[in-house]
Structure formats: structure tokens, C-alpha cells
């Protein structure tokens, strides 16, 4: 199992989405599910990008969600 960090770009701005899944493809489906489930009005999505992935160890894994700095 891996942890995937996505950025969903919409007309209103960027949404960070984190997905735990076995593969990139499965993670992408998780992203869609989370967007559909969590937003009453579906945003107009410009693009969805995977920018980082890491293994989930027994001690866990995570990402800090914050606006990306210009050099990141």
C-alpha cells in the first residue's frame, strides 16, 4: 500500500487530495470518489496530477497539506 499526493486544479483553485491505494490507477479512483463525496457542487476540474508517492510503513505515512511554495 502506498500513499499518493495529488493536486486537483479547478477554476476556483487547487485542491490537495491524499489517497492510500495499491497502485497509481487505484489512487486516481480514490481521488474521484473523494471529490464527488466531499463537494456538494462538483467543481470544474482543469487537471488532476500526482506529484508525490511514498510507501506506507507500519508506523504510517502522511503528507503535510499546505500551499506549495514557489520553489516546490
Amino acid at each position: 500500500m502506498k500513499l499518493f499526493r495529488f493536486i486537483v486544479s479547478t477554476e476556483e483553485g487547487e485542491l490537495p487530495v491524499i489517497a492510500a491505494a495499491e497502485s497509481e490507477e487505484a489512487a486516481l479512483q480514490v481521488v474521484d470518489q473523494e471529490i464527488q463525496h466531499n463537494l456538494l457542487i462538483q467543481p470544474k476540474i482543469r487537471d488532476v496530477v500526482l506529484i508525490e508517492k511514498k510507501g506506507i510503513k507500519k508506523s504510517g505515512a502522511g503528507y503535510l497539506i499546505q500551499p506549495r511554495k514557489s520553489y516546490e
Partner: protein
Amino acid sequence: MSYEKVWADNQKLNKNEISKLKKDGLTIFDDIPHYAKAGFESIPKDQYMYFKYAGLTVQKPQDKGLFMLRVKVPTGILSDEQAVTLAKIGHDYGRDVLDITTRQSIQFHWVPLEKLTEIFDRLKKVDLTTSEAEGDAPRNVVGNPLAGIDPNELFDTRPVVEEIYRFFQDNPDFSNLPRKYKISVNANIFNAGQAEINDLAFTPATKVIDGQKRLGFNVKVGGGLAAKPYLADALNVFVVPDQVIKVAEAVTTIYRDFGYRKSRARARLKYLVADWGISKFEEKVLELTGPLPAAGHDEISGWNGGFFFGAHPQKQKGLNYIGISVPVGRIHSDDFLRIAELARTYGNGELRTVSSQNLIIPNIPDQVLDELLTDNIFKKFPIHPAHFTGYAMACTGDEFCNKALTNTKDRMEEIAARLDREVDLDVPVRIYMVGCTNSCGQRQIADIGIQGLKLRAENNQLVDAYELFVGGTLIGGGHFNERLKGRIRASVISDVLKEFLIYFKNEKEKGETFFEFKNRLGTEKLQVVLDAILENFDN
């Protein structure tokens, strides 16, 4: 071991730290022969971390029993027999491929577990090692690849590098650091040691002491790239060469004893320096070293990006060095061997690796220089490379790396080759490509950084794509490049870059570098330019 692990009882430790307390990383060399006999499946996964101390990473895919193996090359200097040994290891065990890294090391891929002890033996015979090339220990000491022969060096740093290397190498007092630890020693005035991106850096400086001008170093600490890059801060100290080891030991001791071991994500020296502030850090250093003079005159006068192409006179009259382009640092073992043979025939056998992933043959007498340059190898590895291929770098990429999202080396080579054919510039442009948010390809200090990601395509599949970053440098203490908005599919990245660089060509002033151009126009303007380019492509 002659120190107390002061962190053992007084802070929460991460899992690796608990393991390291029970078993030192260097003991992996005792285990490897047993694992080699019993097979890859016999290695418990919790032992993988120890392989790092032997310069080994379990290669992707992780169930094949193959390793990436990294060999240290302090300040990039290889003797004839060392260079030949590396070429033969590449041939015999690494599917004929050698990679020159951005820390002047040599990496091999596809190395089978059962061959590791043979390789260690071969390396030991020529005084090379993989030990601590990875792991939470002092990594390869980088520095001036022209040390001792450089007309632009304040003095010869080879003795200092040797002293530091021998002091720390396999030293059990420093084999358990909180995280990787990178040292740079350089007296080249064009910052060949890339001081600002190292944990501890010695940079060329002068100071008048007791009426005498002394040559030595200023010191910087706490630099590093990675996903959270940080440029090193200067300590207000001046160090003469024979005091370097005292300062290096002090800084490393502070890092060992006070560096953070609770979270590996916060374990690099930069976090301690940031928390303490440079003044407190300096006080601690001086507590260990005793008084040191205040920083001397900084003799750095620019940054050459680590590029030394062409044939140039050495400081020794009648001798020359040639800087050779190795595109993205990847070279076939036969070609490496051929270059080593040329170094022996025409020079003194030495070969030098460069942080820009290239090679140098030193000590070529004037009278044979022209003859050497007629060799066919220089058609493949030119000394005057084209402006893009010669100045491109790339990390390992998804071919071997478990973190990378995209291919890098092959794609960077393709892009650079096309740009060389189709964009004629009067200055080189340093383009560095990475496959993830980390920094193995030093993306953050490139003129143009390219970072890989995956973009969702119309068919709901994830496809390779890239983001661009502009204006990185280590000039003037350094500046990280800045991201431009817009994700660019792999299918059009070379088209987009071509158009972007044609804009640069058309709008630049004569001799203006990309960094100067970006500063003149501003990032916002370059964003407008990229937006307009992307509108013309099916991206």
C-alpha cells in the same frame, strides 16, 4: 567507540534510531556474506536500511535481489587503477552501465546480492569503498575536481579532503548520525564545491592574521536540497587548513548529539540550524573548537555550475586538463575504460568526476594534447559539447528509483539533443530534470528545472508530465528556481521547451545568461510566455 549516545534515553526515537542503537550500520558488512549465501529472500525487510551503510539500495522492483551500488570518490579524484576497477565492475556486475552522480560518486545498477562480496574485495584492493556512501553517516566528501591543478584555486585542497575522508570513514564515533550528512571542501573561486547545498562546507577565504595574509576557509552549515531545500548559513569563523578537521569534528559532533532523532523527516542538520539560529550554533561549535578568528574575506567570485568543459592549462606549466561531457552522467563501461586508458597513455592515469556528472582527464602535457583530442571517443563524449546536452543533468528516474514518477535520463537526453539541433544559443542553459519532489538531480539550482509528475489524461489514465521551474543558481549565496504554472505532457515537453527557449533566444541580450534574463524579465513575464506557448499545443 568513545562517546556516549546522549540521545538514547532522553528523546522519543524513530524506528530507525531504535534499530541503530541495537546494531550499528557498519555491521552490515558482516551480514552480507551470510545473506549472499542464503539468498535475497533471507533478508528480513527491516534489515534493508542497514544495506544503505554499505552504499546499497534494494533496486526496483524490490523482489529481484538486485541492488544499486554507490562508490565514494572523495573530491572526484580517481587513480588509474581505481578507474579501471570501476569500469570492470560495471562490465562484470552492472550490465555495462556506470552513472556519475551529482556528489562525484559512481553508481552501478542491477548488482546481484551474491556478487557483493567480490565487488567489495575488488574495491578494497584499490582503496575504494561503498561504505557510508548511503545511510545516516558522512557521505562522499565533495569538492573541487581540479584540486591541486587548478589555476583558479586558492590552494590545493587534496590534503584536507584526504584528512577529512580518513577521519570520518568507518569511524564508529560518527557512523550513527541522525540522517545523511554531506561535507564539501573547496578552494576553487567559482564555488566548484557547491557549498550552499551541503550540511557542512568549507569555502575559500583569506585573512590577515598577525600581519600575514593567511589562506584558508570560511564555513557554512545547514544547507541541503531535498523536498524542503535550504541554503547553508555562514558561521563567523575563519579556518586555516590544519584546523579544518577540528571544525569538521565539532560540527559533526553537534549534529550527532543534538540533531533530531524523533522524526527522520526533521533529522537533517538544516532543521537544527534553523531552530537554534546560526549564532547559537556557532557558540556551540566554538565551545568545542576553542576560539577561532572571525570569518575572512570571501574569495568566491561566482559559480561555474560545476562545468569544466574544454582543454585548459593547469597551474603546472606545460600541463593541461580536459573536461569531457558525459550526457546525463551515464556511460558504458567500455567507454569509461577507454577514457581511463587515454588518461594513462596521455596523462598520469588520473581521472576525475565532476558534480555536473561529467569527467576530467588531468595532467596532459602540451605536446600530446592535440594528439589526444583526435581520439574517436571525443566524438561521443565531446570536450566542447552542445549547449543543451552538455549542460543537462538528470536523476536516476523511474527506471530504478522507487520514488520517481517519471523517466528522467532518457527523456532529458532526448530533449537536450533536440534543443541542440533546433535552438542555437550563444550561452549554455543548464536544464536539470528530476522524477519526483526530491533533489537527486539538483533541480532547484538549475536555470530551468523540470520536475516529473503524473497527469490524468482523457482516458482516465495517468500519463507522464512535467512542471517547469526557472532561475535557480548558487551565485550570490544561491536562489532556488521558481515554479511556472502549467503541467506539460511528456508528449509535448520538448516542443514546449523549444518554443520557450526560442523566446529566450529572440529576447535575450548578447551574452546574457538565462539567469540574468529571468531576473531582467521576471517570473511573471515568463509565466505569460509559457501560457501563450501552451495554448498552441494539445496539452
